[in-house]
């Protein structure tokens, strides 16, 4: 597997270890040999029972076999994930026993649009991702909109309202980019959580919902998927064959997918490279385990979405989302500048 950390960070870490001298290096090495010797602490920057929680629990169930440790969870929702990240960076030991289970897309958009007290990648590093979940727009099963074209046409006459769990979200950017490309008018309504956002669309408070695909698959006939923000629809049979947005409308909107991923402190990457290697190696082993397919699907993630991503791909994705967020900053934040 390929783990590509910032070379400068590794060198800084190695230099620091060397400077501390052999007397300190020995106990560290011994500790690393036995890693992990206690339970892993998982911080989830959203609430109990959400999509990340479900996916993390399914994944960790298998990961525990290879890592040789159990997982304990704590939840820090709030301010679109900012609370969780700030708690992780400032209040959790950078010892590689503390990991954050998040979603790169929404949380890097949050990072770019909110005033946060931490820096990426100086304070934390994504070391692997486990799936790719595409943004979608769907309407209630009984909605008059049958296709994304219908919605766009209506949006040229009046402002369409779309519920979303939070404004800093890839699906929000997808909807805004769609509006920019087609001339439709759209207003995003954040509900502070996926559940209320889905409920608002089903019960007709808003015209539709912009969200990640996997969280809406359980809605069955209550949701009619109109479009997918990716180059292909990987689960056409589950999404009434909704077309990819560019294919349906001739737009050039980039893929807007979320990647659930684990992060650890960058200081831990520097101080404990062997621990990080063990985390990364065992993380990747999970994907080859047939039992993971069973538990992932039970947790509501179609197997087509499960996709291993290494640290480099996570970093690339994070960078892309920061750039996208900068582009749509005035529409995602209270500042109009």
């Amino acid at each position, binding site marked *: 597997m390929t783990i590509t950390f910032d070379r400068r960070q590794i060198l800084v870490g190695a230099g620091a270890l060397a400077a501390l001298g052999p007397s300190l290096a020995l106990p560290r090495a011994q500790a690393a040999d036995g890693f992990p010797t206690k339970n892993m602490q998982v911080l989830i920057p959203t*609430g*109990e*029972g*959400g999509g990340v*929680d*479900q996916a993390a*629990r*399914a994944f960790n169930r298998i990961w525990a076999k290879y890592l040789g440790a159990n997982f304990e*969870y*704590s939840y*820090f*929702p*709030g*301010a*679109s994930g*900012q*609370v969780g990240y*700030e*708690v992780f960076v*400032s209040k959790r030991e950078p010892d590689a026993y503390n990991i954050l289970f998040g979603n790169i897309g929404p949380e890097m958009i*949050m990072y770019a649009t*909110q005033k946060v*007290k931490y820096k990426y990648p100086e304070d934390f590093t994504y070391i692997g991702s486990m799936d790719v979940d595409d943004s979608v727009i769907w309407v209630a099963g009984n909605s008059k909109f049958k296709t994304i074209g219908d919605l766009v046409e209506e949006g040229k006459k009046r*402002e369409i*309202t779309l519920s979303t769990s*939070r*404004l*800093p979200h890839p699906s929000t950017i997808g909807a805004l980019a769609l509006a920019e490309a087609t001339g439709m008018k759209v*207003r995003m*309504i*954040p*509900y*502070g*959580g996926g*559940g*209320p956002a*889905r*409920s*608002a669309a*089903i*019960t*007709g*408070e*808003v015209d539709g919902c912009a969200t990640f695909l996997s969280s809406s698959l*359980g*809605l*069955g*006939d*209550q949701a009619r998927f109109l479009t997918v923000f990716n180059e292909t629809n990987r689960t056409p049979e589950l999404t009434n064959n909704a077309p990819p947005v560019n294919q349906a409308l001739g737009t050039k909107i980039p893929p807007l997918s979320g990647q659930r991923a684990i992060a650890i402190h960058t200081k831990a990457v520097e101080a404990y490279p062997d621990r990080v290697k063990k985390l990364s190696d065992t993380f990747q082993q999970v994907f080859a385990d047939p039992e993971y397919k069973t*538990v992932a699907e*039970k*947790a*509501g993630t179609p197997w087509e979405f499960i996709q291993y991503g290494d640290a480099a791909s996570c970093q690339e994705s994070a960078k892309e989302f920061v750039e996208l967020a900068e582009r749509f900053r005035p529409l*995602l*934040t*209270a500042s109009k500048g």
Partner: protein
Amino acid sequence: MNLSFSLLADQFLLNFSYLWLIVIATTIGIIIGAMPGFGSANTIIMLLPFTLAVDVDVAMIFMVSLFVASHMGGGITSILLNIPGNGGSAATCLDGYPMAKKGLGQQALVLSFVASTVGGMVTALMSIFLLPYIARLAYYMHSVEMVVILLFGITLIASVASDNMLKGLIAGFLGLLIGAIGADHIYSTPRGTFGFIELYDGVPLIAVLIGVFAISEALIMMEQSSVLSETGMQMMKQSGWKETWEGVVMSFQRTWHMIWTGIIGLIIGIVPGAGASIAAFVAYQQSRLYSKTPEKYGTGIPEGVIAPESANNGCASGDLIPLLVIGVPGGTTAAVMLIVMTYHGVQLGPRLFIQNPGLGYGVFITMLVAYAVMLFTTLPLTRWVSKLVMIPTPVLAPIIIAFTLVGAFAPRAYMFDLWLTLLFGAIGYVCRKTGFNVVALLIGVILGPMLEANVMRALRISGNDPWVFFSSPVGNILWAALAISLAIPSIVQWRRNRATRIAAA
């Protein structure tokens, strides 16, 4: 939806075969419900390995029993110690604690248990037989309607503040200000947090509950030797099975009261994001409104215990309906249940009642059985549990402070929350000493953020058009009901004054 009596009978039998599990789950639920800071969601999360390891039917029986029991348990400390176990039982303090201070704690506990049982059972039965229609209510309850429903609860500030309107309104306003702390609901911009990350998600309700109720109450207790008056102590010493029976009779003399306040809870519970706190406060407000003796509310009357307890248990049925019928959890505990059901491969939403109607309807059958079990296990205990108030306050107060501080720390494991709790304890103490109503403050803290979120959402949907609040037929009916509910006390008072004047003339 495939409902048949044989299906219901099967579910009853299944539940009876797991009676031992229901007894365990309800016992855990009642204990955690009575402890501020410990909730059903946290407990189910902790016991998740168990729920994932057993069959989905068994997991549901366990979780539903624990969930409903936590609603019932919240009232115990509200009544005996003026300390609500959760937001849903805060309104129970208003009349429950005054009853306990008079030496009527045993009757108040019985009222609470019977009202919880009747409210929970009636709404569970309604849910079984009227599920498709009740579920449709969610289609009419949007942000606009929620704004009016929340205003019903917030007007309670004026009612509880009636002794000293100015101080009461100041306390309520302070509560609303405290509730506005945290990230805003649209852009997540932090407000009033003073840079504390611990406040970005708002002021934690548990810290406020424990501070203004438990800590301040413990401080007040330390100033006296006993919670009870001399007469109250004599009554408690002599209390026996007779008082339990009296409580049962008092409850069933108010059967209709238990039913309609339970239905208020059911309706509010169906709205995703609403919860037991709103249900209890709105039910209390409505109960007071239609009472012939509204001035007695807050002095320790049975109706003041029945209304919030019946409503917060009715809300338990309502909370689960969006989860089962549209696959969207109505609250945190329902969200955790969603994890378990999804793990077991259960398809939620309308298909549940086609593919697995036994599980869908079984949830409500479990509620019925759990309430019946709880009533039989808790009623005999009231005789002994109520004696808690006889413990001398120099012993009781430090125990309360120690236990509740653990409860303040437990949910988020922040030292910050401990300091915040002590701060609210000091605020609560000063409020009590100076005649500012702490319940008014609490109503502001609980309902304020929900009101703000719904107002902002409704305005955003409408493009900032304030007429949106009068744009829905259901909303307009609720507005009319709110106007009537505000006008009735004045009309009644005017008629009384007029009658007095005529009589004097």
